[in-house]
């Protein structure tokens, strides 16, 4: 490769990584404002652990992310299997609705759900967040699972039936094992989408249930907070681990 091409790739990567790198470095920096390197410290990590409201928001966010990823994967996974296997009334409408949810900006879905929750009297907190997050995760789950289903041999299902397997046996012994990597990838994707979400969460949560994006938003607005750097570093680390797992899973997919 010509050197100028390598330089070009390097510049793009620098743009993507310098901000993250500086943030990670500052989370270990003695200097509170990160203006210069004053030595290595873990004090911001302990400050982060002692910040009770920050920790509570993190716990709440993780709780919402884990539950909505689980509900979305189960409902979306089973739903996608039905969409793939059967022809039923409203199948097309279902697919169009899923595509619409995926394509509209988050803010539109967020205010639509806010109007719905206020009118029907659903209190804004854990449950409203769960319902909203499952909704925006569902299309990503069905797309992932459908892609996997379309990739495998439909003869496998016919063969199982020919050999006398019942409908539920086919599902349990053929379809679900084949779907395992796609389901895991969907869960991880949903988990990340939920944890990453700022827009929908700002609209559908209430004052009694503080979540991470809102907490971070209010902390960051007033200036640099080293414990935010520490928490962010932790999250970048988690992202790296998750993406490597996901990459491994999709690689298995193609085999």
């Amino acid at each position, binding site marked *: 490769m010509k050197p100028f091409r390598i330089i070009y790739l390097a510049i793009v990567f620098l743009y993507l990584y310098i*901000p993250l790198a*500086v943030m990670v470095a500052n989370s270990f920096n003695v200097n509170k404002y990160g203006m210069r390197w004053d030595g290595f410290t873990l004090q911001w990590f302990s400050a982060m652990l002692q910040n009770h409201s920050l920790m509570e928001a993190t716990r709440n966010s993780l709780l919402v992310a884990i539950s909505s990823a689980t509900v979305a994967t189960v409902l979306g996974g089973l739903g996608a299997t*039905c969409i793939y296997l059967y022809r039923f009334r409203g199948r097309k409408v*279902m697919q169009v609705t899923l595509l619409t949810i995926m394509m509209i*900006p988050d803010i*539109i879905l967020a205010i639509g759900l806010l109007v719905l929750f206020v009118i029907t009297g659903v209190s804004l907190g854990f449950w409203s967040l769960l319902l909203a997050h499952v909704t925006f995760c569902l299309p990503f789950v069905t797309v992932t699972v459908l892609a996997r289903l379309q990739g495998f041999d439909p003869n496998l299902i016919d063969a199982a039936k020919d050999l006398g397997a019942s409908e539920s046996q086919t599902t349990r012994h053929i379809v679900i094992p084949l779907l395992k990597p796609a389901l895991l990838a969907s869960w991880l994707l949903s988990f990340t989408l939920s944890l990453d979400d700022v827009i929908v969460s700002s609209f559908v949560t209430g004052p009694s249930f503080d979540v991470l994006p809102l907490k971070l938003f209010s902390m960051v607005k007033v200036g640099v907070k080293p414990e935010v750097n520490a928490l962010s570093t932790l999250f970048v680390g988690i992202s790296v681990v998750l993406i490597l797992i996901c990459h491994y899973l999709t690689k298995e997919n193609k085999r």
Partner: protein
Amino acid sequence: MKPSSRITIITLLGFWLTIFGGLPLLLLLVTSFLGQHPEKFFELNFSLESYRQLLDSSYLDILLRSIKQAVITTLLCLVISYPFVWLTARMNKRNRNIVLILVMIPFWTNSLIRTYAVRIIIGTNGLLNKMLLGLGLIDSPLRLMYSETAVVIGLIYLMLPFMILPLYANLEKFDYRLVEAARDLGAGNTQIFLRIALPLTLPGIIGGSIMVFVPTMGLFYVASLLGGGKNLLVGNLIHQNFLVSQNWPLGAAMSTALILMLLSMLLAYTFILRKMKSREVAG
């Protein structure tokens, strides 16, 4: 699956999508036609007041500026990504995978955290200014923060992977032998780009552009963290009308306008795709 469980699943998913997917959008449309009330969220009568207000110069101004920023962001993302993806697609499989993982790591990191990270870099005392001062390229620190430029830098930073990934999916399938054939037949670089690369990668270009353009207008937190109070996006207006001034009909009308605009773009995209397909069949 047993017929009974099959019906249960389909019904459940159908209900979910109707109530939490379709109904909110319908409610939004209805709300945009309701009357405004200073103390309540809305008043229950039919009114076109909110749409009339949308045409008000100050709102129209923000809407147009928001579109301008989204267009600039999309174009710059495209200009940065296209050569990047072109080079990546030529690599061997191992390096390609490494590049893709490196592109996706920031994409999987909380976007609020990343916006904050951008703020650390471009602030008056940030790394960027220090580097430029150190290199002697500037005499006094650049005041990038709280400007339109800062918002665009932040938006590009967040949206770049959304351009790279669809472009890559498209360019991966591109047959490089076409370029070699064209070169053998005496085509120059410009000609190769305009007559071979561009038409064949157009679906990826448009797909990536939509992926960047659509969410960009709603990213209110980027505008408030990097643009201060002055450089607003449509998302900020909607956010303000729903959570601060509680003027739901006006906020809903803005959202409806946004959806209509995006919808017409999507229709144009499918139209272009269909036209290209029919040309392929004919040719």
